């Protein structure tokens, strides 16, 4: 055996490209599926993040605007008339729902002020639940990606390493050049899992706390408005 041949063989061996694309293309089919799944999870969770951030900003601005109008001393009747056709914000929806119940009961000639109070409270609760459900929808997907993403990626890695070890056993060659590519492509699955999971976890915590704040403001307003209506009921009787 010529030493020159040995040298040449050693030079040829690592020639194979190890770019990300080739790593992906060379991966086992299971690992490929895992990677694709994680890619879609990442795309979808970022879509949710963008959507929610925009939504919360909008909701906050609307609430601010409504509160300013509500506490400006304007007559509740006028306010109801201007908003009843299309409640612009979550808080406006609360206001309109309560006002509608109030007016309906009064026009029908309510006899029991306690029953009216209870109905108004219940309407407010239902509206708050509906609004917060709209705010928090899809946030659970972020939580799922955040907790399961690393595991899914790890599954891809374990599978990839398993197949590459099988290949080693079959080829009876333990040189690092044989082992390394398989492990590199397997580790890429874990990397993708982390890439999908980390933003999801961070965004979930951030969005959950903002939605909690918004819901808190809605509840506070509902209690206040309920108190105002209750005072009105007492005065009328």
């Amino acid at each position, binding site marked *: 055996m010529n*030493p*020159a041949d040995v040298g040449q063989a050693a030079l040829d061996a690592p020639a194979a490209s190890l770019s990300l*694309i080739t790593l992906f293309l060379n991966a086992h089919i299971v690992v490929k599926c895992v990677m694709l799944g994680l890619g879609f999870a990442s795309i979808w969770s970022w879509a949710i993040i*963008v*959507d929610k951030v925009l939504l919360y900003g909008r909701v906050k601005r609307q609430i601010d605007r409504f509160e300013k109008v509500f506490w400006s001393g304007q007559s509740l009747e006028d306010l109801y008339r201007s908003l009843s056709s299309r409640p612009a914000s979550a808080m406006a929806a609360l206001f309109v729902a309560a006002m509608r119940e109030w007016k309906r009961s009064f026009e029908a000639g309510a006899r029991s002020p306690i029953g009216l109070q209870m109905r108004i409270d219940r309407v407010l609760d239902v509206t708050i639940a509906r609004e917060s459900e709209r705010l928090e929808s899809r946030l659970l997907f972020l939580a799922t990606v955040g907790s399961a993403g690393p595991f899914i990626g790890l599954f891809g890695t374990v599978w990839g390493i398993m197949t590459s070890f099988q290949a080693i056993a079959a080829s009876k060659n333990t040189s690092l050049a044989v082992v390394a590519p398989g492990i590199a492509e397997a580790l890429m699955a874990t990397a993708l899992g982390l890439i999908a999971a980390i933003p999801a976890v961070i965004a979930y915590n951030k969005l959950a706390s903002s939605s909690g704040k918004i819901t808190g403001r809605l509840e506070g307003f509902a209690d206040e408005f309920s108190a105002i209506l209750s005072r009105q009921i007492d005065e009328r009787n």
Partner: protein
Amino acid sequence: MRTGLITSIIAHLLIIFWGLFALPDTKPFDTSSVEALPVELVPISDLTSLQKGKKTAEVKDKPSPNKPAEKDSPKPAPTPPPPKPTPPSTPPPPKADPTPPAPKAEPTPPAPKAEATPPPTPAAPEKPAEPAPAPSPEPAVAPKPPEAEKVAEAPPPPPAPKPRVRPTPPTPTPPKPDQTAAAKPATPTQSTTDSKFDPDKISALLDRQKPTGSTQASQEPESFGAEEARNPTAMMSQSELDALRSQVQRCWNLPVGWTDPREVTVTIRFKLNQDGTVNGTPSIEQYPASNYGTVAAEGAVRAVLQCGPYQLPAEKYDQWSEVQMRFSPQG
């Protein structure tokens, strides 16, 4: 929701494309190239030869630095096969070597004859060799002197008058002791065949060719070979490789319990000091992927360590300073 989804998809695509073009490709680790001397326990059919050249160059029949090297040191001449990097079945190559001595006022042998006998032209290299030496030189020359020598002899016979000079030739030879050393220890006798050494004709002995400088002065592009070989034409002969092999083989035992010895192929690499002792710990390059693999590999390492120091030709230290050895019992 749609804005979010579109934004997300676009962002992902951008990041992927950015990653494709902006992320640097993985850089291979820097590894220093090693000029290893392979020694195999499996019989080797060919001589190994280390040619000076570039590892990345193409393999060529004719190594480019060969020409100047020959002029500088006549070593390659005695062993026709070696200069070829591709020993397998290339009979033409030897020609290159024998020719230089005769026509090209080569070192010593041809030159004196040029003076002694007007016909310096080796017009009939083969023929004269037969008749003239017949008287006495032939028997001494031994059965088969290489072609080169014969050609050298060719002219002298005609003048034939002074065959007795036979013993003297050794003196002219010393300058090029390697002539015989490389491959066939048997050849030394040939040097004695250079008959006459005439001090008056020293000028004729001189190489009239312009010095070409180092062996790298060749005009041809670099050919395939070892980059660091300082003595490009020296090579380990089969017998020397065999010597190293047998020295290691003494200490190597096949691991007990091995069921199929054909699977045992261990490659280890080690460095040697100038005095033949092992430098550092041999590294295991490759070992069989089965239960006994590590046992066999460690056995090989132990064998190498136990059997040192090795007796190897010191002048070829370049060649055996680092040795890659393959252990395989099937041979």
